[in-house]
């Protein structure tokens, strides 16, 4: 059976990828962020999974507003890096794992999560920036194949935090029932607090972000109880992306061990957070 070995929650701000692509990680505006990633990257380099699942959202690059799937999954062999309007990021295309994708799909549909299937998908910064945070120098390939799991966080009504957490739990069971003996890393991406439009543009809420970072490992149920309104009020209209961390967390064990976390602002208009959890720790009897 397959086993989740770690969960990595991280912001996926495009400017983080741009700073890496342009060699600006030592720039005074960025250094603290990238220094903050280093301990997680070192640990992850020692714990390479056979496959990763990246929970993310697209931003007008791979999909448009003609169809707005609440939840979706990629089932392709390969995902091209999207051209977001300024050329592709200079990072490798993403290799998929269609067998695992189709297993997860079937299992999740059987549990009542009727995912939309993406047989073709260009992946944008929402997926590639987290891969870069994990592996800053991938060379010509990412460390392992990747299954993209998409969430609508752009158009109201986004799925509720509770539904995301439940999807994560079902995802955890789906992974456990995969007959292959493979190890899995799972990435929950987006956030933290930010708002791009409106008179409240630029809104950041460090108290809320700190609470979220402190709680995601130990008491995700408390975060899953937050309403959309509360999330938009507290984290900003785009900060609601944080619901995707709950899918990652739901797929993990009840007890997880925090390996590392870091909080930084601003990454352009956004508070950037990272939290890495080891899933292989003793569980309560």
């Amino acid at each position, binding site marked *: 059976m397959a086993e989740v070995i770690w969960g990595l929650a991280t912001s996926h701000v495009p400017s983080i990828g741009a700073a890496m692509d342009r060699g600006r990680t030592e720039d005074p505006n960025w250094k603290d962020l990238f220094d903050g990633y280093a301990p997680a990257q070192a640990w992850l380099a020692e714990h390479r999974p056979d496959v990763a699942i990246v929970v993310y959202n697209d931003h007008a690059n791979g999909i448009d507003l003609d169809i707005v799937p609440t939840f979706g999954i990629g089932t392709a062999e390969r995902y091209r890096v999207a051209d977001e*309007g300024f050329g592709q990021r200079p990072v490798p295309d993403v290799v998929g794992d269609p067998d695992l994708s189709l297993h997860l799909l079937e299992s999740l549909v059987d549990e009542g999560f009727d995912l939309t299937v993406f047989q073709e998908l260009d992946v944008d910064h929402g997926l590639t920036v987290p891969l870069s945070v994990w592996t800053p120098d991938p060379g010509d390939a990412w460390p392992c194949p990747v299954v993209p799991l998409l969430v609508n966080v752009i158009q109201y009504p986004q799925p509720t935090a509770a539904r995301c957490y439940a999807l994560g739990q079902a995802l955890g069971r789906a992974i456990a029932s995969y007959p292959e003996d493979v190890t899995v890393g799972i990435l929950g991406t987006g956030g933290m*607090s930010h708002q791009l*439009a*409106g008179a409240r543009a630029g*809104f950041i*809420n460090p108290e809320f972000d700190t609470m979220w970072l402190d709680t995601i490992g130990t008491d995700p149920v408390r975060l899953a109880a937050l309403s959309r309104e509360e999330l938009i009020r507290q984290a900003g209209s785009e900060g609601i992306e944080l619901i995707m961390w709950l899918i990652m967390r739901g797929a993990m064990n009840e007890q997880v061990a925090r390996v590392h976390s870091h909080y930084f602002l601003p990454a352009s*208009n956004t508070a950037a957070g990272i939290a890495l959890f080891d899933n292989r720790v003793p569980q309560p009897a």
Partner: protein
Amino acid sequence: MSTDATAGRFDVPGTPVFDGQTSRRGLRMNRMFMSLRSAENRERFLADEAAYCRDSELTPEQQQAVLDRDWQAMIDLGGSIFYVYKLAMMDGRSMQYLGGVFTGTTEEEFQAAMRARGRRDG
């Protein structure tokens, strides 16, 4: 048909909620913004913006907002910030510039506010 269907759901001051009615209003304009990811379409757009807007079936108000680069109006007329940003990028404008527009400050002031740990409620 209501054009302000978010009223009565919940109201977070200064916070546009991009909902289904907004997305219906903005569908064609957002689709046009997304088309600007390709260099070929950007060239066609820049050669004759009004014609490109008409071909994209924008409403007259949306077309005017685009021609005037009235970023607030684009949001009000159904633009999603992620889509509107495609046009801004084409113009060489940053998200901090747009933040300045939405908050009535300059790009520099907006950026300074972000560096000072962001803007807060009221």
